[in-house]
């Protein structure tokens, strides 16, 4: 035998594996986030760069330290970077850097590693970070600035909600991202590009963004009709705020969303309904983060009650 005096290997089948792996998938998500990153940097310049760098660096550092302290092997995948990046994407560009760092560390330590690390957390870490920051520093977290020149102004959604009389941005401005808001939520175009890449790579299931956005669209169409607002109204809600970012990158996080197909549709519809509820009736102009967190909460129950019928468990035989 030519096997260099080594013993042969005996394992269980299969002996081939798809090239898919956790590090590869995380890398793909990072790639998908690049357009949004570029758009964010273009519109919000240096302050955005500082916040992004701070979030990503502190998230990654927190991850490494957590693993070390808990005496677990370093995993060498990029999920913490995704968390940091996504957190940075959904906070205001002018947030003081120390707050961003705090949020990032909270995400990784409390929302992820206290639960056992990658794959075991219940809540979306990035969104927990955002919710933490919003509840902790509401003043700083609700001070927005205009793209490019950084003048303080309201976001399209708060203009809408509070009817302050300011002019609403046009749909095309919303689509391209030339409006105030979180670092990378403003450009619908960039996010759609990234989302399309993730769908193409098979990392996310169309069911979640589909049912999420579909629900918002339908409910907002009805609301717009009731208000007599015209056909732009649902589109305004689709492109304004963090809806697209949330639907493509956060409601699709594997770890914190249902695993069954029906469950994913329920999840998306739930998120969509909650967003509409909060945007129209709630205390906040925007509700994407909370809606996803609330649905994260229900995910274990959704999974439990939406199990697929096993092949061969046909009704007559059940």
């Amino acid at each position, binding site marked *: 035998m030519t096997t260099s005096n080594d013993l042969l290997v005996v394992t269980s089948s299969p002996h081939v594996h798809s090239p898919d792996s956790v590090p590869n998938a995380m890398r793909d998500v990072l790639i998908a986030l690049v357009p949004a990153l570029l758009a964010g940097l273009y519109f919000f310049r240096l302050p955005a760069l500082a916040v992004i760098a701070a979030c990503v660096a502190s998230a990654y550092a927190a991850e490494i330290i957590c693993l070390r302290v808990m005496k677990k092997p370093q995993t060498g995948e990029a999920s913490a970077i995704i968390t940091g990046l996504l957190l940075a994407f959904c906070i205001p560009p002018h947030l003081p850097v120390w707050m961003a760092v705090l949020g990032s560390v909270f995400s990784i330590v409390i929302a992820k590693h*206290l639960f*056992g690390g990658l794959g075991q957390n219940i809540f979306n870490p990035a969104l927990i970070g955002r919710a933490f920051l919003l509840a902790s520093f509401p003043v700083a977290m609700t001070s927005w600035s205009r793209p490019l020149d950084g003048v303080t102004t309201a976001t399209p959604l708060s203009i809408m909600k509070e009817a302050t009389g300011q002019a609403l941005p046009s749909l095309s401005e919303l689509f391209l991202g030339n409006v105030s808001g979180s670092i990378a939520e403003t450009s619908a175009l960039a996010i759609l590009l990234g989302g399309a890449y993730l769908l193409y790579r098979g990392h996310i299931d169309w069911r979640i963004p589909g049912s999420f956005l579909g629900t918002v669209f339908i409910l907002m169409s009805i609301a717009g009709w009731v208000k007599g607002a015209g056909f732009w109204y649902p589109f305004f809600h689709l492109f304004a705020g963090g809806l697209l970012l949330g639907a493509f990158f956060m409601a699709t996080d594997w770890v914190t969303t249902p695993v069954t197909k029906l469950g994913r549709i329920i999840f998306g519809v739930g998120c969509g309904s909650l967003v509409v509820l909060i945007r129209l009736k709630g205390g906040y102009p925007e509700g994407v983060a909370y809606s996803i*967190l609330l649905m994260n909460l229900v995910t274990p*129950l959704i999974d439990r009650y939406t199990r697929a019928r096993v092949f061969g468990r046909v009704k007559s035989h059940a």
Partner: protein
Amino acid sequence: MQEYFIIIISAVLINNIVLSQFLGICPFLGVSKKLSASLGMGGAVSFVLVLAGALTWTVQTYILNPFKIGYLQTIAFILIIAALVQFVEMAMRKYSPPLYKALGIYLPLITTNCAVLGVAIINIKKEYTFGKVMVHSLSHAAGFTLALVLMSGIRERLEDADIPESMRGTPIALVVAALMSMAFLGFSGLI
């Protein structure tokens, strides 16, 4: 009608009895390990909460208030609740053994549960009418059950999670509760 609606939304979602009023934490932490137990506890608490709401309101309105002995509220209520729980347990065992089997073991835990007394006191504080007392008690019961059921779903999933040794059990449950109540902040400002 709208008033009732507001009471319901407020009690279930916004001022959830466990997540934002901090009542009934003990059973929330103690009986949320299994979904089935949560449902049982939720059922038992709902039952007692509504009955106690009705009784305490009656006693307050027709005895304590007319005789101007409002200061006996605490002691009167706790006696009513304790007797009620005992009575319910007894009646249940006699007339519906299956129900007793399902809820019975949770009943004794309820006497020393702040939720029941707390809601009874809030009912009076808010000067609700009888109808509102019923709706209010029922909504809080629903809020309690909701929180408990969500929690147990999560805890069942956490059962095999690789949680740091010293955080297992109650500590992580508290952290989950923290994040839950953070998510519930999203409901604030509703109505």
